[in-house]
């Protein structure tokens, strides 16, 4: 289990994100793990969130190595930094990539920038 798995597990349990009440869309994460690709499809319906392991088409697809996903989830890097570093790619609607960051854990201390290790999220 890595921080990314913990994140999606926790997200499925949370089920709702108030900061996304205005949004109905699908965002898919394609997590590259060596030769394997894991898919997580997140359906957002006025802030209600459902997570499935599906490779259905989505309004926005975010592709990145697992390590990069772990860094974004734990706050060691930002999604934008990963994107312009060429460590992640986005297909479809960019605005959704920005808004999808509101799904990330918000706990103070869990995301203190590059210097802080993955506190809060489970260790890998």
């Amino acid at each position, binding site marked *: 289990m890595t921080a990314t798995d913990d994140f999606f597990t926790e997200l499925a349990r949370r089920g709702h994100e*108030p*900061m996304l*009440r*205005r949004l109905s869309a699908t965002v898919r994460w394609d997590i590259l793990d060596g030769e394997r690709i894991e898919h997580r499809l997140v359906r957002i319906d006025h802030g209600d969130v459902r997570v499935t392991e599906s490779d259905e088409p989505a309004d926005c697809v975010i*592709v990145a190595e697992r390590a990069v996903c772990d860094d974004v989830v734990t*706050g060691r*890097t*930002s999604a*934008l*930094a990963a*994107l*312009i*570093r*060429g*460590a*992640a*790619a986005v297909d479809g609607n*960019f*605005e959704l*990539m*920005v*808004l999808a*960051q*509101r799904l*990330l*854990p*918000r*706990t*103070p*201390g*869990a*995301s*203190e*920038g*590059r*210097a*802080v290790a993955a506190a809060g999220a489970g260790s890998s």
Partner: protein
Amino acid sequence: MTEDVVRILNGSTFVVCDRRGDIDASPTDPTGLFAYDTRFLSRWVLTVDGERLTALSTDDLQYFEARFFLVPGTGTVYVDAKTTVIRQRAVADGFIEQLTVFNHDVEPVELTVRIEAAADFADLFEVKDALQKKGSHSVAAVAGQLVLSYRRETFHRSTTVASTQPAEVDEHGLTFTVHIEPHGSWSTELTIRAVVLGPGERPLRSTTAAEDVRGEMLENLDRWVARAPRLTCDSDSLVATYRRSLIDLAALRFSPIIAGPHSLPAAGLPWFMTVFGRDSIFTSLQALPFAPELATTTLRVLGDWQGNRVDDFRDEDPGRILHEVRYGELSAFQERPHTPYYGTADATPLYVVLMDEYERWTGDAGLVREYEQELRAALRWIDDYADLLGLGYIAYQRRNEETGLENQCWKDSWDGISYRDGRLPGFPRATCELQGYAYDAKMRGARLAREFWDDPAYADDLERAAADLKTRFNRDFWIEDGQYYALALDADGAQVDALSSNIGHLLWSGIVDVDRAQAVAGHLLGPRLFSGWGVRTLAEGETRYNPIGYHNGTVWPFDNSFIAWGLRRYGFSVEAARIAAGNLEAADFYHGRLPEAFGGYERTLTKYPVEFPTACSPQAWSTGAPLLYLRTMLGLEPHGEHLVVEPALPVGIGRIELLDIPGRWGRVDAFGRGMVEVGTGADGGPPRRPVTPERRA
């Protein structure tokens, strides 16, 4: 040096070159082709038969294109001008250059035309600081194209150079062997593309077809000017300034990656062609009566990027509105925090202010409802994250001590906030204008909650909190013996007692008690702050006062435009007209383009406004200042579904008509005539006149 440099741009892509069209940059020299905050060409030099050229003339055709008339040789006397060269260049996702060589002789000629090209891929921050690159460069000739690349781990940027005429391509450039008949010409089109490559060598953003770009941009500029209200006026200079402002504002539009085809105002040309929370909001406010669509995009983009987590590196908190976004290498590798950086204390309350003002003008209730959560989060930020002193005021102190911003208000230079005796306060600092913005945000937030979110209880809470803030502020910031508000509270909650232009913003926000407004207006138009051209950032007589001190005595048109708006809010229409007149007369000395700041020298002393040297021109919020002056002088104010017009214009303006002002009323016209005697020079205090009741405070 500025006169020797030609700058053209399209959004965040821009070219800075010499008058020949050449780029020959040293590591610290700011010429080149820049895109995504990266220099994609650091060398672009044209030779004919091995000789550099000389410019006969250079025309900035539009903000996005320039034309260079050249002859071979670098001497001062053109003994043999049988060959001439025209380079015409338009910025797209890179640039397109039409290169034409003319033979004026009666004999045919054989010429070797060469373009030297190189790219150092410096980050904009590196150009300023001359840092060494950490990645590796490569050059390749691929299918008749020159491809310049830079890689550092997964970070990959590339510049491609292609020509419509066949060229010999080597790793330093392209060579053309050219035969031209008598009185004939030869031409090629060079296309330079700046590409950000993601995983699998895929471009981050799809590029536009090059040939369409120029036509589209021309059409777009015409549409932009045609859509804005039409100004006719006895004052030719005001008409010229207005037109200059509209065109400069068009140039300053910028489409961030997430905004699709929509644009918002970037901060300044060329180094600040990026999203800045504060600058984009202030400029959108200034432009509301003229181009309300800028505010729409600003509100959407800043709302989408609103802070979500506690991140010390980015000075990010939930609800906080960003300060600055950058796409360069240092940001990508988190050696700079701009992905995005949130270290500003004013953008968050100002975001709420802009949304309310936007709705009052446009009637776009949909956006107010759509961004309800963002607006609530912004209002929460004021109370939950910004109260660093525990006194119920917005204060700032960076958490990123290495690369974060120390001063998170608009006067952001190291010595921009001082006591009368020149000492600098410690951190956190609670500058006064931030409290005004917070008050205004709460009052306006209450209106939005009541009218659009069906939440009267929240509206009541906000109004109570605003009233409480106003009472405390008038107690804690008021300096009794000086009869003005302190510039800030320091880390101990004590007054930072310098007299500054910040008190003018307090009028704009409505936090000033009515019985104190006269004293504040008196200071703003008094001899210590008013120079005759405008209001100084810091009053004469303060220890750090310096007429050419960046935030310590210069006059900032943006600052003055909000002060004038504030004066009108409290009924001081004559005083507002004086400031507008002073600033607009100063604009004449700059061909209608107000600089970021000019010297605070007494007007009678210098006779002309001394420009403060800055790298960026035009600057968005200076460009917006004449627009806000028009609004203020005409007394344009939305009331329900109507636009109220209540002119108070300086006599020099004569008759004025502003036609087709867009808003929730459709389009309406405003007429006025200059009746206000404003005089010139700082003559020691404002004219005495009855104070009319404040409108919304």
